[in-house]
């Protein structure tokens, strides 16, 4: 088994190239996986803060607005409800939108009364929220109900699709690794044809002839796995500072998650396993065709 390492060392360029390609092929799904995992981590908390904004008609008076707000607050489905007056709304808008100067020019407040509410804890499923929103929409004083669920659901759907694409990419790239290792082993077999023939002539079984090639595939896959993990690590290291800056700009304390120990093991072990399998396939296919002539 160690002898096969020596042989790999004797063809440094081919070996390094193969390991590099395996490393990149394994690093790609690993990196994609991390991107999706981090995006899920960022958005995981969003589902809890679903908020409905109920915009009342502009003609609504303060008393009417308070009456509607009380009625909404009294509903079972509603957890917290806050009435926001047009003045409060304008103040908030001025503070956060960055177009405060332009708003100075307005002669009258264009904002309506708004009831902002969160659903009760046991009524926050997307379906329940949709029902509540539809119900509120039918109130005569209500102009518009905005539920924030749609974009969260869309985001989660996109992430789920991405996750499946990562799985698909991993499968495709795994086949790529098999092909790369298979081709390298094929070249190795051709290069050692004389040795294989002589070994078979003096009674070497197929298993005996195959063994060094399996070791060779295993080592290359293992090394490729380590390289993939290293590449992902380097990528994380390089992204750490920019991501921290972005998070800070949004006032969020977000740290990029790296690979867990189990995932490191999966990439390295997966590389070794794919190397072994690729070598086995190539050996099974090509060794059969080498029969000794005498």
């Amino acid at each position, binding site marked *: 088994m160690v002898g096969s390492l020596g042989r790999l060392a004797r063809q440094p360029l081919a070996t390094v190239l193969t390991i590099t390609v395996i490393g990149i092929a394994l690093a790609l799904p690993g990196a994609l996986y991390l991107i999706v995992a981090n995006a899920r981590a960022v958005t995981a908390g969003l589902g809890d803060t679903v908020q409905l904004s109920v915009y009342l008609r502009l003609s609504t008076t303060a008393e009417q607005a308070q009456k509607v707000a009380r009625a909404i607050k009294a509903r079972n489905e509603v957890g917290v409800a806050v009435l926001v007056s047009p003045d409060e709304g304008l103040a908030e808008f001025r503070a956060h939108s960055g177009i405060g100067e332009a708003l100075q020019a307005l002669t009258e407040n264009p904002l309506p009364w708004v009831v902002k509410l969160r659903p009760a804890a046991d009524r926050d499923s997307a379906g329940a929220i949709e029902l509540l929103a539809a119900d509120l929409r039918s109130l005569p004083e209500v102009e518009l109900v905005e539920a924030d669920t749609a974009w969260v659901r869309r985001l989660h759907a996109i992430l789920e699709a991405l996750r499946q694409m990562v799985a698909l990419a991993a499968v495709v790239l795994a086949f790529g690794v098999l092909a790369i290792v298979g081709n390298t082993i094929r070249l190795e077999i051709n290069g050692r044809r004389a040795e294989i023939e*002589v*070994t078979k002539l003096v009674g*070497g079984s197929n298993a005996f002839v195959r063994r060094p090639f399996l070791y060779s595939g295993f080592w290359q896959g293992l090394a490729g796995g380590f390289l993939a993990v290293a590449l992902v690590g380097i990528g994380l290291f390089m992204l750490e500072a920019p991501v921290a800056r972005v998070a800070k700009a949004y006032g969020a304390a977000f740290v990029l998650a790296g690979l867990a120990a189990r995932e490191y093991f999966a990439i390295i072990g997966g590389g070794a396993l794919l190397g072994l399998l690729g070598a086995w396939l190539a050996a099974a296919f090509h060794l059969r065709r080498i029969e000794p002539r*005498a």
Partner: protein
Amino acid sequence: MIRFDRVFKRYPNGREALAELSFELATGEMTFLTGHSGAGKSTVLRLIALLERPTRGQVVVHGRSTASLRSRAIPGFRRQIGIVFQDHRLLDDRPVYDNVALPLAISGVPRREMDRRVRAALDQVGLLGRERTFPLELSAGEQQRVGIARAVITKPPVLIADEPTGNLDPDLALEVMNLFQRFNAVGVTVMVATHDIHLLDRFPVRRIHIEQGRLANPSYAAA
């Protein structure tokens, strides 16, 4: 030990190498297989080593018909036969030690015993101390002797050789043939294919002469 029973061999290209060939070799017997090139000598040896299978008829080695052997059993079968080639088929990128030890490595012999047996085999062919030499650094006769050491290292009961002296000058050929006779003296069944007339006269052993794939004038040299 080896029996050919009405063996007919036609190669895929249509060439008929052997026709109705029958002969028998007793255990411990030494034989020359003679005939012109193309007469079918190599085919006989290839059939014994199971590099080919007969088209018709039976080849029996060690009491087993080779026809009944599955391809999975061929490696084990070949380990019972020492084979010496005219071009000796050594691995030029491996030292003498590795070449000779190959059959032992295949059998999974431990390193210490391997060392001992490689030395013993090299001693028998007069090449002790050349373990680390590469084949191309050796003379033709020495290379052939390495090939013989490799063939006998597992102590096979049968030793077959295809024109082992074909590339050697008469003195070296004689030396190599003496080696075969020494192995035969300790009970190994030996079959040597050759068309070296001078050599044949020096060794009074049974000859199996084939012509156009048939047995022709089987004769025993006067002992």
